[in-house]
């Protein structure tokens, strides 16, 4: 923070110097070293009030025409998922096409897929905050919302794959609490670590999101017209007045939450990968899994952020706040994490050969050339090849192209989890325990329905909450800086 404000005041000084030299005698003094010109984060020098109106306007004005059809379709998908879950609970987990030897298939694939998507939100909100990447302010709110909704979708699958859910949710099985059987959960199992990791992740993400929302809810409260809006925004903004005594504690708390979320997000997908890596199944039992899963999670999450934000920005005319530069920077993250993922795929194969275990080598040969070859090569096409288009600035700034690639990333990352889970399980050590998993219609429609849940929550979020962090975007404009001429600093005229 200190360095940021120092450089800002240096640029203000440079500004003063250049103005001061107007009409001065011909004596030419060497120019003061000038800070490299940075592209502004909000285009066209929009005033602070414009930012409030543009962002708060989205959730105050009536929703555009497409909102209701989109909501009805999403809501229908959500209801379909709930009905299929009711069918599963009343009939048995067999309706999901799970059978020996593949007892995990689409359920855990979907779980890892959704939880991975969440990681981009935390990365943008926490890691980029600690790294002082100010561009994050335009996208962090929507990305955090995405995280929370993705974790909600993720939670559905592991909970209901237990079949008799009441046992999973009763005290003593997943969550420790005294119970009539006097048994406790088994803390040596990575599956229990997962319960703690995912529930902590969901809770902390929600807290972090809410803390960020408080000042913006106060903005909405102060602009609210109807009684209900006044009441609810007033209630949830907790009486925020923008007091600097409050900001002081608030900023410290925000920094600490960012500092806590960073090791959290790294640990969550590491622990998810332990579900596999701690077992002794060939194809799963590898030490590369934690970093490889974390990189993959960030890759998939940024894919989903782009899939959501590119349409959002044009549908709500937020071009000056979510700029092409933001999209380009996110494409660079895709390129970096996609390369790590590609490297991990290669390294897995190398170790399978170099490690000298015939079972491990077989598992990997079977992945690429066995009965599930099509899923392996879909994964490679989407995850290893597609991000490398982003070496080219022309392609990074072509939003239609970026959007299409982001869809490929989503598909590829779903296939990655499918490949890891199903190809490792479907052929056990003895050929008598070989099988071929095929999803049932319930599998497919439950997954489709989870997108309905996700989109329903996201559309409600657009409808009622500020999609962009208003106060944070204001904070990175030059008008916010008391030492910048646009912030009203004297001496430049």
């Amino acid at each position: 923070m200190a360095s940021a404000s120092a450089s800002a005041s240096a640029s203000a000084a440079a500004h003063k110097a250049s103005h001061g030299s107007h009409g001065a005698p011909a004596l030419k003094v060497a120019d003061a070293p000038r800070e490299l010109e940075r592209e502004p984060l909000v285009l066209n020098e929009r005033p602070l009030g414009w930012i409030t109106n543009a962002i708060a306007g989205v959730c105050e004005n009536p929703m555009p025409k497409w909102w209701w059809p989109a909501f009805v379709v999403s809501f229908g998908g959500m209801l379909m998922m709930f009905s299929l879950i009711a069918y599963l609970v009343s009939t048995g987990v067999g309706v999901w096409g799970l059978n020996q030897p593949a007892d995990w298939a689409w359920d855990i694939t979907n779980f890892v897929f959704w939880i991975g998507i969440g990681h981009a939100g935390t990365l943008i909100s926490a890691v980029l905050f600690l790294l002082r990447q100010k561009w994050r302010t335009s996208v962090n709110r929507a990305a955090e919302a995405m995280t929370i909704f993705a974790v909600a979708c993720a939670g559905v699958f592991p909970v209901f794959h237990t079949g008799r859910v009441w046992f999973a949710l009763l005290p003593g099985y997943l969550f420790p609490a005294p119970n009539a059987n006097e048994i406790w959960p088994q803390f040596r199992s990575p599956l229990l670590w997962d319960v703690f990791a995912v529930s902590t992740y969901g809770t902390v993400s929600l807290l972090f999101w809410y803390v960020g929302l408080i000042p913006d809810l106060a903005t909405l409260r102060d602009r609210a017209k109807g009684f209900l809006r006044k009441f609810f925004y007033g209630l949830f903004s907790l009486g925020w007045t923008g007091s600097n005594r409050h900001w002081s504690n608030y900023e410290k708390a925000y920094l600490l939450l960012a500092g806590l979320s960073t090791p959290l997000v790294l640990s969550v997908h590491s622990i998810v990968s332990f579900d596999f890596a701690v077992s002794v199944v060939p194809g799963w039992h590898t030490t590369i899994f934690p970093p490889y899963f974390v990189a993959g999670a960030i890759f998939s999450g940024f894919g989903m952020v782009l899939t959501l934000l590119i349409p959002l920005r044009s549908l709500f005319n937020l071009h000056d706040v979510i700029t092409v530069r933001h999209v380009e920077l996110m494409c660079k993250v895709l390129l970096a994490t996609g390369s790590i993922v590609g490297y991990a795929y290669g390294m897995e194969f190398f170790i399978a050969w170099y490690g000298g275990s015939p079972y491990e080598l077989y598992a990997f040969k079977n992945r690429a050339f066995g009965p599930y070859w099509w899923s392996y090569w879909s994964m490679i096409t989407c995850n290893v090849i597609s991000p490398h288009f982003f070496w080219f600035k022309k392609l990074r700034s072509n939003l239609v192209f970026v959007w299409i690639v982001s869809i490929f990333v989503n598909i590829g990352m779903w296939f990655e989890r499918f490949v890891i889970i199903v190809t490792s399980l479907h052929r056990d050590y003895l050929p008598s325990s070989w099988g071929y998993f095929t999803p049932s219609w319930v599998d497919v429609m439950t997954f489709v329905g989870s997108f309905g849940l996700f989109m329903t929550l996201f559309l409600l979020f657009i409808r009622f909450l500020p999609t962009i962090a208003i106060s944070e975007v204001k904070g990175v404009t030059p008008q916010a800086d008391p030492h910048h001429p646009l912030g009203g600093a004297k001496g430049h005229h």
Partner: protein
Amino acid sequence: MSASPLKPHALLAEFGTAADIFEAAILCRDAGFSKWDVHTPFPIHGMDEAMGLRKSPVGWFTFCGGMTGFSAGMTMIWYMNKFDYPLVVGGKPLFTPLYAFPVSYEMTILLSAFGTLFGMFFLNRLPKLYNPLFKNERFKKATDDRFFIVIEAADPKFSLEATRAFLTEKCHATAVEIVED
């Protein structure tokens, strides 16, 4: 403006730019006010020093939360899997901090986050749903694009006329109003 029949709660001074309120805050600090505050739509860098605030102690709440989380996690796992119901699974030890670590780690983060959030609420005395400032129409801009200084009538150095003159003439506020209790 004639004297208000109601007791004044505070004087509210409005400013148009970040630089103006920054300089005014320094003047208020140097004038020795104690019950006063700056209200801005976003945090202004350097305002804590300009107001002369001490460093925020939120970190202590985070620390206590984290320590509680870690020790609660370790103790819980030791109690459940080693002490209360010892059960050998896969020949693994009944307790070792290694297998207890992932869960204790998550609990450290969870309770640190709760400590941070509720510590911040406690220090800021939030939620506070009633505030005399909310009755002022002009103050609604404090969450939009205007900057305000509020000096409370309870401040020992407060005097309606002198403070008003100080805010208008010395601090160059664009408007000064009385906020009624």
